[in-house]
């Protein structure tokens, strides 16, 4: 069953910023790309390293894995460069009552 979890108030995540949230055993990175919000699992599909610590490019809406350089599309979770080749999970972002929320399952 999908659940809705709170991330933070909208004003706490301005464009160009990211934030990490935990839910059960999942870590999820939430990114503000020029006003659009996206969320992906914080785990590189290449070797399980943390993604949200990597360089966030809000113009191209990507994050670069700090370990081996794979570039992930935050909208789809798809790697745009090797060595990762499997997409990471993405999560729907909802704004409700001026709060950023995620739909998780």
């Amino acid at each position, binding site marked *: 069953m999908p659940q809705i979890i709170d991330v933070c108030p909208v004003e706490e995540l301005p464009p160009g910023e990211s934030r990490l949230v935990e839910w059960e055993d999942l870590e999820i990175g939430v990114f503000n790309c020029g006003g659009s919000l996206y969320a992906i699992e914080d785990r590189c599909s290449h070797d399980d390293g943390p993604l949200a610590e990597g360089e966030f490019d809000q113009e191209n809406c990507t994050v*670069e*894995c*700090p*370990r*081996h*350089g*794979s*570039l992930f599309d935050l909208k789809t979770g798809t790697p*745009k*460069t*090797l*060595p990762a*080749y*499997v997409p990471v999970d993405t999560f729907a972002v909802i704004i409700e009552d001026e709060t950023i929320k995620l739909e998780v399952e």
Partner: protein
Amino acid sequence: MAVTENEALAAINADYEQRYGFRDAENYLYKAPKGLNREIVEKISEFKSEPQWMRDFRLKALDHFLSRPQPTWGSPLLAEVDYDDIHYFVRASEKPGRSWDDVPEDVKNTFDRLGIPEAERKFLAGVGAQYESEVVYHQVREDLEKQGVIFLDMDSGLREHEDIVREHFATVIPPNDNKLAALNSAVWSGGSFVYVPEGVHVEMPLQAYFRINTENMGQFERTLIIAAPGSYVHYVEGCTAPTYSSSSLHSAVVELIAEPGARIRYTTVQNWSTNVFNLVTKRAVAQEDATVEWVDCNLGSRLTMKYPSVYLLGERAHGEILSIAFAGKGQHQDAGGKIIHAAPNTTSNIFAKSISKDGGRGSYRGLLEIAKGAHGARSKVVCDALLLDEHSRSDTYPTIRIGEDDVNVGHEATVSKVGEDQLFYLMAHGIPEDEASKLIVNGFIEPITKELPMEYAVEMNRLIELQMEGSIG
């Protein structure tokens, strides 16, 4: 009594000094001081009048390189690499010539001695010749140019086809992939840019020849080959250097992209002098129904660490790696290959052969990965090692990861010695000892040499002949 096969085989590359080991006087337009810093990287970018994005790319890669530790796996010889004792950029000529007459006289003489212009006339569709950091000569047959084939040195490729380069550059091997890829990304210079348009078959090989002349040199070429759907290209590279008592470093990055139904074959005959550290990252992408083949021959260098890889990203893609390595006195050839099956019904083969002699060390290091969802994948890995004496060493480090049930994977590995019994058996049939040794070695490497273009097969066989010459008297 005839000498042992040990003595006979000591002659591999015995004429290296005479054939390849000569050196030219240094008449350079620019030679960077030893060592690497931001200023050197900026200078390289400035020399090449690069766009800002490439300059930023280099500087970011430099930060990656400086912040990553030297790898501790692979070979203890890696600890000998001294990054502060290297010249990172040496310019020998103003720009690549389209005629050999445009190439500086002594550099032209070098390539004449190496037989490159002659080979170009006889059997090549295009040639690039790199001397130190940059390509000094580049030419492609006119009929191919008319069909839209692009074969340029990488610097010119960036200048003349910036859009294509920017779209694909570093998508297969990002700068932060590993420390050496980061180093190359920071200081890359030269190498080849190849684009083959849809449906075009380049029937004769394109060749690049890499030459290091100066002492303590670092050569960091960067090659990007894109084969559009249904096209075919065979790219061949060779390399040599004079022998010095101090070390040089060669660290290339090679990216291949085979689009749907395309086929790329990439052949390397690596024959660096035994003071060169050869630390190279080579990786290919094969999309739907595409084929990528690496034929990788390692004869020279002090240490080679190189594992060409193929990511089979599209359904029915095929990858093939043929690797052969000779490790002689003081050498460590840490070679092999990686295949990643990331799509259904993909197929691959890895055949690796190593020959170790005179205390040399040959290692096979390989990865075969079948991702979840790549059902119907089929792969065969065969790695064989031949030890020619008691002092030499062979190691095998195979990794196999399988994430799918419906697959077919085979792995075979053998280590054998040229034993007295094999020699005795052949000699009992009237074959002299030197001939017998030759037969055994030839039989061992034959599956690889038969895949080489004829001219290179001849060269490989010549090396085998040489080793036998030493056995007379």
